[in-house]
């Protein structure tokens, strides 16, 4: 049975969400061709939708690489979602993204794995972290 790798992008900016999702998908296409894993790519412009799907069991939170923007609109930020994911004890990687590098210095931030500034290198850097996550957790070479 193929192992499922969930790749989740949560960003309220549709443009960046799309760019990042495309970039991530391209970076790990090679493992899909190897046939042992299947990649489930989901993008959300709304963090609430993701939380609802996780809670309903519609989407597994295990084996997930989650790329989440800090500011999610409507006065919401990624903190409560990261907290929720950490409490679930799921085996996942959380990459926190923000336009501002200063975000990572916020004291109230829950534990995340990587921080990426949403600049032009962000898609490439996120892809690098995704590859690293897959290689480490699934013992498969992505390149």
């Amino acid at each position, binding site marked *: 049975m193929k192992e499922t790798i969930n790749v989740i992008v949560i960003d*309220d*900016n*549709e*443009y*960046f969400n*799309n*760019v990042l999702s*495309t*970039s991530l998908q*391209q970076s790990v296409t090679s493992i899909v061709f190897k046939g042992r894993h299947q990649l489930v790519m989901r993008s959300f412009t709304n963090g609430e939708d993701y939380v609802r799907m996780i809670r309903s069991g519609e989407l597994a939170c295990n084996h997930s690489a989650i790329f989440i923007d800090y*500011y999610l*609109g409507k*006065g919401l930020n990624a903190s409560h979602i990261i907290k929720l994911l950490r409490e679930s004890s799921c085996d996942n990687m959380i990459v926190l993204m923000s*336009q501002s*590098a200063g975000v990572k210095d916020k004291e109230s931030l829950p534990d995340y794995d*990587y*921080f990426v*500034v*949403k*600049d*032009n*290198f*962000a*898609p*490439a*850097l996120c892809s*690098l*972290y995704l590859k*690293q996550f897959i290689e480490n957790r699934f013992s498969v070479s992505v390149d």
Partner: protein
Amino acid sequence: MPDKSDKMSLKGTIQVKVGLLMVLAVMLLLATCYLSYRNLSAVVSSIRIDANPQLKLLTIREIAMDLEKAENSVRLYTVTKNPADIKPYYSVISRIDDKVAKLRKEFRNDSVLLRQTDDISRLLEQNILLWNQLLALNKDDKVSEYFRKLADQLDSLAQNSEKKEKGILRRVFSRNPKAQIDGQALRTGIDSLFRQDSLAKDEMIIRESRIASTGRQLKGKFYDLISRMENEITGTITAKAESAGKMAGNTYTWLILLAVSGGLLAMMILIIIVRYVRKAGAYQEALETSRAEAEQLARTKELFVANMSHEIRTPVTAISGFTGQLLGAKPDEETRKSLEIIKSSSDHLLKIIDDILDFSKLQNEKLVLERVDFSPRRIMEEVYPLFEGQARQNGTSLSFSVDGGTPRVLSGDPYRLKQILINLVGNSIKFTKNGSVKYSVTSRETAAGEIELQLEVSDTGIGIDESKHEMIFEDFTQAEMSTARKYGGTGLGLSIVKKLVHLQNGTISIKSKRNQGTVISCIIPYRKGSGSIDVNEGKNEARDHTELAGLKVLVVDDEEYNRLLFRKILEKWNIEVSEASSGMDALELLKTNRYDLLFMDMLMPGLDGLKATKFIRDEMKIGTGQMPVIFISAASIDEEAEKFRNAGINAFLRKPFTEEMLLDAVTGAAGKGSEPEAHAARVDAPETGPLKEDGINLGDLYHIAAGDRDFVRQMLLSFEDTTRKGLKEIESAIGDGNWDQVAESAHRLLPPCRHLGAMELFNLLHEIEKNSRERISTDSLGSLTERSVIEFGRVCKLLEGHMAKMA
């Protein structure tokens, strides 16, 4: 898991079982063949025997027919008196004897049939007598003459025949005067018959009648006997047929039994073989598992050794490095001595770690030799100062010589040559007190054009007993147990030397006697050096590092004390040092800063040095000429050097490093880094128009799209749409005085603007976000928003123009 002895035992048992069953199978096969042959032979034999009685019966029937013929002939003659009619009779009776003899011969092995043949013979004799009497009653001249001829014939036969056994005719015609009719008596009888013919006419009819009656009786008896014989033969045939049938039945039974046994045996062999194959498969699997486990264990061990050595090396490097720095700061005498002890101890510890690492690599055949041009003289010179102090402390003189004919440049692995020399000289120094240690190099050119370098290290030390010469090259071995206690050491030095020499296709030999010193010689083949190197022989000039002043260097290492050591040394040379404790931090720094040189640690948590370097080269497009990357590692990277170079790493610096090594690395890399290299933009679809022009840069978008123009178009439309909406939200929020909403909306619009290179729009929106978060007046926000809308319109025009070109 089965062990080796179990496997051997199983193999032996299986072999015995299969062997025994095979022997049994062969025996069964042989028995089957034998029994089948025997029974089939018997059946064939009986068939052959069965064929013969038919011939015998034929002979008997021939005799019977002959008798009929003879009787008819006699009867015809008695009626016709024609001598021609009696001829068949004589013909028959002349052959009858042969036929009876033939029959007797055929029945010679059967007493019953032989007896009956004798009876037939006797009856024939009587019958012939009767027929003769009948003929005598019908005599005439011709009859008499015939009888005379017959008598002559009989005489002649009597004289010539040597047969002991008498034929029927002979017996008939050689009877005594009373009971036998011989030729003379027959003639007399015939004469008498002639004479009495007229007298006995009446009596003849009566006698003829009596003779005929007797003949019939005899004939009946004769046929009865023939019938009996036929019955006897038929009985025999039937008995033999029954016997053959029985034998065939037995054969079938045997064949069935043997076939069943053979089948069972084959099944047993098959079961045993299947079981054996299954067990062998299980053992094979267990063996594979064991091998995999052993390999995994070896890998784990190797990794453990590498990791441990790294873990130990890192702090020891720092200790050694900082001690060196403190020693360079001219401390007081007491502190200097203490620091020298620390330095010496940490260097010794590093040497042990190096030995263990090298030994592990040599054992696992992982050590890869380098091939570069080097100066053998320089290596000899470099080794000298390493032991000069120690030799002086031991009261030992240390000297070296380089033969004048030694080539200035050779091609090979100088690091390993130096390692061999350091080990050998170090050993000699260690075991020589108040004596002398010399090392020298000579060379000779081989027929193949190679240069054989002969290293010789001689000392006047404690020497080694001849019986232990071989042993000292073994792993973890020293000549005496007490040696390790007295002089220290792991016992790996000479073992490593031997392995290194052999790895380079060289030879090593030793001449030594206890208390008479030691001479160790190594002959290692090298190629002639092709390039010219800066040999700088015999010079130990103070290095000038003023040219390095002002360089900007980034040091990336997760170990703080390593970064500090770098900083301490580099800042002495007026180099500007920046630090990053992880690969991620380094990338963040590189986004906004440019450095002349980067020192990158290999192993770091999160993003390791290799991946970070690859990202710098591939994604950030900072070329090797623009910013050289020097990889720092405690482990040897020989076998992966090519991979690292391909990732964009310029040079390597091995930990622990000396100030000199660091200076070499910085000067070397800085020199190479002087070539300007363009910071290449990511352009994947240049033919579609101005990707980079005043206000936009679509390079990144095209890079991600990987040639998918529809995606590009879709993304551009998406940008226009979301930005338009976002700007309206900002305008609306400004109207409502909702500062947070203004900041949030502006913030959300920033990444796409930056991604498309719309930096003017980006800056305006960034200003809006900043002002709104800082609650700066709505007037300025309104002005900024207006400018943003105008700029957005300009960007949209550019994008639409681009899309039009795409179409």
